[in-house]
């Protein structure tokens, strides 16, 4: 379970997030949408303690993490995974070593068991047999999927996905969407997914939170968001350039 209470964040003088209140229930898939630069990645970084909030509280599984020391945080992070927006693969290691990293650091599994897990996770993201490839030899979309395999390698309870389907072809995007849903179904994983793909947001989300200008302007189920009366939400999910643009055009035609 994740809970943000009155959270604010800033970079130097620049206020990036204000008054963030958000609860993600256990086993829920929460999708965060919002314009570029609105602070979506920043919310994920707050949730995993990479960034300290300037105000408010962040609760992970009933523990307040915003004032924790790094050692304590690490105990919590062992049950969390994160897919970075730009993959953040360790470029000095092979794909296999990247995926195995968490297992080697934090479990007592032997090499054979680790190799087996790595093979399975790579298969789940459609990268069978790529263990020995170096990240520099991969395309952007393939890196993304390795990052995903690395995040779920330790079977975390909470996974944060920062644009997991960005740069993937439509079929691979659907595969990843299904993977997010099936990890939830099989392992009861709590997921927070940042995405710009509205179709995938609508297909995987239990609830959607829309963020704009550093604030959460709407939270609700897929149908609630689709029927939202907030013009900003409508504009965003339909990709209109001016709010209500298409609606106006349509109504003038008929």
């Amino acid at each position, binding site marked *: 379970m994740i809970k943000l209470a009155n959270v604010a964040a800033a970079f130097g003088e620049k206020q990036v997030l204000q008054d963030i209140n958000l609860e993600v229930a256990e086993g829920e898939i929460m999708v965060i949408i919002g314009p570029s630069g609105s602070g979506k990645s920043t919310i994920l970084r707050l949730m995993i303690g990479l960034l300290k909030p300037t105000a408010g509280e962040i609760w992970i599984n009933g523990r307040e993490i915003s004032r924790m020391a790094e050692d304590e945080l690490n105990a919590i992070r062992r049950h969390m995974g994160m897919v*970075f927006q730009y993959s953040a693969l360790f470029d000095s290691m092979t794909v296999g070593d990247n995926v195995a*990293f968490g297992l080697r650091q934090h479990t007592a599994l032997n090499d054979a068991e680790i190799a087996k897990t790595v093979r399975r996770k790579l298969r789940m993201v459609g990268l069978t047999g790529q263990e020995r490839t170096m990240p520099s030899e991969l395309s952007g979309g393939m890196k993304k999927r390795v990052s995903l395999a690395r995040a779920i390698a330790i079977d975390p309870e909470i996974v944060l996905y920062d644009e997991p389907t960005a740069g993937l072809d439509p079929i691979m995007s659907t595969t990843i969407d299904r993977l997010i849903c099936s990890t939830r179904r099989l392992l009861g994983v709590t997921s927070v997914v940042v995405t710009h793909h509205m179709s995938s947001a609508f297909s995987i989300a239990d609830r959607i939170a829309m963020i704009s200008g550093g604030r959460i302007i709407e939270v609700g189920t897929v149908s609630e968001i689709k029927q939202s009366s907030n013009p900003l939400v409508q504009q965003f999910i339909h990709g209109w350039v001016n709010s209500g643009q298409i609606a106006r055009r349509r109504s003038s035609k008929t």
Partner: protein
Amino acid sequence: MALVPFLETIGRLIIRYLESVGKVLLLLGASLAQLRRRPDMGQVLRQMAHLGADSLPIVLLTMLFTGMVMTMQISHEFIKYGAQSSVGGVVAIAMGRELAPVLAGIVAAGRVGAAITAEIGSMKVTEQIDALRVMATDPVAYLVVPRLIACVFMLPVLVVFADVIGTVGGYAVATAYAGIGSYTFTHSIKVFAVVNDVTGGLIKSMVFGAIIAIIGCYKGLTTAEGAEGVGRATTGSVVTSMILIFVSNYFLSYILYR
């Protein structure tokens, strides 16, 4: 008045400088605190191999020519005053106490310190450091400690090679160019040089190794965004390490050879 903003600027610079000194010391403290746990010996050995292989050829070349040029210069003068029997000892002592540790340190700062900063800096700007933290791995324990240990123990090894090759270079020039007898040269080393001339240099080089590793890691971990940031951090790392090596060398000499 223009004086106030001027003073403010100076004050700000001093504060920023002291702040980074503090942060470097904190990083050193954090690394030492990590030594409670057993460091990843595989990583340490990999770093040592890397470091040694990277720097040894240049260290050898540098020291060979330093020993040669130094002998060429002093033998000329010494012979004028009839002191050719001191040449070997002076060369060996200068090598052991000062030239080998300082020059090996400078070479290592340029090779190893720069490599450390570039590597960690590019990890920083591509969020790999964040990825380490997300995977519950302390970047200090994982990245800094192995490099610190490797530098502290590898630099003395380089210095041993440097001592030998520098003296050999001196010997070659003394016998072949300056006409000093081979026995005169080696005997002079035996008469003048003592063990402390070498061990003192080795102690120095351990300090230099620590400087190179900590500054290299600090500059890497504090790299600003972008490829440009990595470049700037790398030059900064080399320059800072070199300055610290020269300055600390003076005080170490004062302590070790008073």
